């Protein structure tokens, strides 16, 4: 007798809305998520770059750490320095191994002096929770709660995000700087409003109760936001050179190799992975994540081999044809000596050996006001 495990994807509170909007749905990190709506990835990508787009990112996980030693725990398990955060401020960080490699890349929110919220990748929720629980258990006066199911998370992104959101909230959005957040309401629903995102545009992420998600979603679409799926989320973040866990970073890549040295709190007393990262910084990196654009016509995708002098020297971690810059770009781990701008590399695109050149990241940078 065989036993077939049911392959049931989790659904966000907006699942029915996505289907009504004609979304094509895919399984992503165990969730049934919209990859694109009727207008398609390119149009959605342009909408976020030029107007404002609305994403359901409720699949993201939330892990809270509270207690007298909450900061000590956060400081130990993450590589960035959370002691610099004020209540109402967030930072990009990573949970690191002893080797300085990445268990997950996260946002750390300081909710109160003894209360932190970690926003983690959907596919890593269980792993992160187990890792943090293990670290807490030793000495600390702190508790860990996986509160992922208590939040729906909507991201409103694009140059018109503030203009679209402002009429729906009493919070003065102009007073929220980049990577700060505040508690307020949106469409008469309680919300934590955070000026963060994963697109390279200005915008907000709204933490709300799942039962209120449809109301807020509909209200934002009513005032002109366009629904955006995970397909455009990927092309947008890649143009902005934001790393994607599982592609560009994982437990085999160090924070430094990934070019994320700016999230290492070197001055912190101690954190898991600090010694390894200090050693790596002193001895130098043998490989680095570099951005490239294709010279020859073709699209390099994840897993394609990178060649130099007819030898395999690395591999592509992310790659696409970008709808906005309208060229084929990507990221790859290459030997440090090949990571300089304008260096030419060869990528095996399904049997065709095509030229690409290393270029500065990010590929796209918005004009700031």
């Amino acid at each position, binding site marked *: 007798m065989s036993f077939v495990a049911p392959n049931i994807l989790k659904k966000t509170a907006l699942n029915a809305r996505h289907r009504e909007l004609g979304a*094509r749905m895919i399984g992503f990190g165990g969730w049934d998520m919209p*990859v*694109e709506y009727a207008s*398609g*990835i*390119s149009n959605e990508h342009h909408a976020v770059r030029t107007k404002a787009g609305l994403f359901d990112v409720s699949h993201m996980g939330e892990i809270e750490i509270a207690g007298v030693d909450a900061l000590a725990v956060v400081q130990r398990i993450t590589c960035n320095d959370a002691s610099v955060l004020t209540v109402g401020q967030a930072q990009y960080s990573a949970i690191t191994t002893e080797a300085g490699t990445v268990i997950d890349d996260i946002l750390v929110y300081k909710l109160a002096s003894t209360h932190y919220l970690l926003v983690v990748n959907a596919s890593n929720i269980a792993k992160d929770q187990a890792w943090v629980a293990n670290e807490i258990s030793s000495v600390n006066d702190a508790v860990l709660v996986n509160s992922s199911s208590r939040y729906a998370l909507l991201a409103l992104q694009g140059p018109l995000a503030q203009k679209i959101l402002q009429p729906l909230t009493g919070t003065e959005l102009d007073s929220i700087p980049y990577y700060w957040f505040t508690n307020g309401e949106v469409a008469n629903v309680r919300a934590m409003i955070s000026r963060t995102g994963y697109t390279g545009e200005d915008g907000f992420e709204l933490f709300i109760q799942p039962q209120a998600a449809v109301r807020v979603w509909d209200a934002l679409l009513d005032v002109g936001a366009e629904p955006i799926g995970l*397909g455009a989320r*990927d*092309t947008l973040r890649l143009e902005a050179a934001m790393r994607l866990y599982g592609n560009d970073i994982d437990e085999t890549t160090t924070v430094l190799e990934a070019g994320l040295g700016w999230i290492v709190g070197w001055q912190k007393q101690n954190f898991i992975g600090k010694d390894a990262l200090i050693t790596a910084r002193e001895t130098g990196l043998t490989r680095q994540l570099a951005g490239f654009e294709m010279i020859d*016509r*073709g*699209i390099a*995708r994840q897993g394609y081999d990178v060649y130099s002098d007819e030898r395999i020297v690395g591999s592509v971690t992310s790659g*696409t*044809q970008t*709808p906005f810059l309208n060229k*084929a770009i990507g990221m790859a781990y290459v030997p440090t000596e090949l990571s300089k701008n304008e260096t030419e590399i060869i990528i095996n695109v*399904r049997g*065709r050996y095509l030229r690409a050149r290393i270029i500065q990241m990010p590929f796209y940078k918005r004009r700031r006001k």
Partner: protein
Amino acid sequence: MYPPELKYTKNHEWIRISGTQGQVGITDYAQQQLGDVVFVDLPEIGIHFTQGEQFGSIESVKAVSDLYCPVSGKVVEVNSALIDHPDTVNADPYGAWIIIVTLSNTDELLTLLEADGYGELIT
């Protein structure tokens, strides 16, 4: 939706026969599944492909699909307009032919699907 004058493959290519030549493209269903097409990898003129052999590939933002020749034949023309405007495949899948082949064995046409049969395949 599936023009009756065309013949179809299970891999979602179509062929429009005119004399001993045929235009080859991909179906409306195929372009919908792919999403926004951003790149068409065309073969060189003069190459002979056998029925079912890969003659090129087509890429959308999110995926790559191989293109298979519906019949055996020699490529006599490629639609180079697709190099700069690959999205024509989305806008007009039955107008945006990819290659024209000279058929080497017209009997192979009998192995292809009619519009009805193709329509059943994808529903």
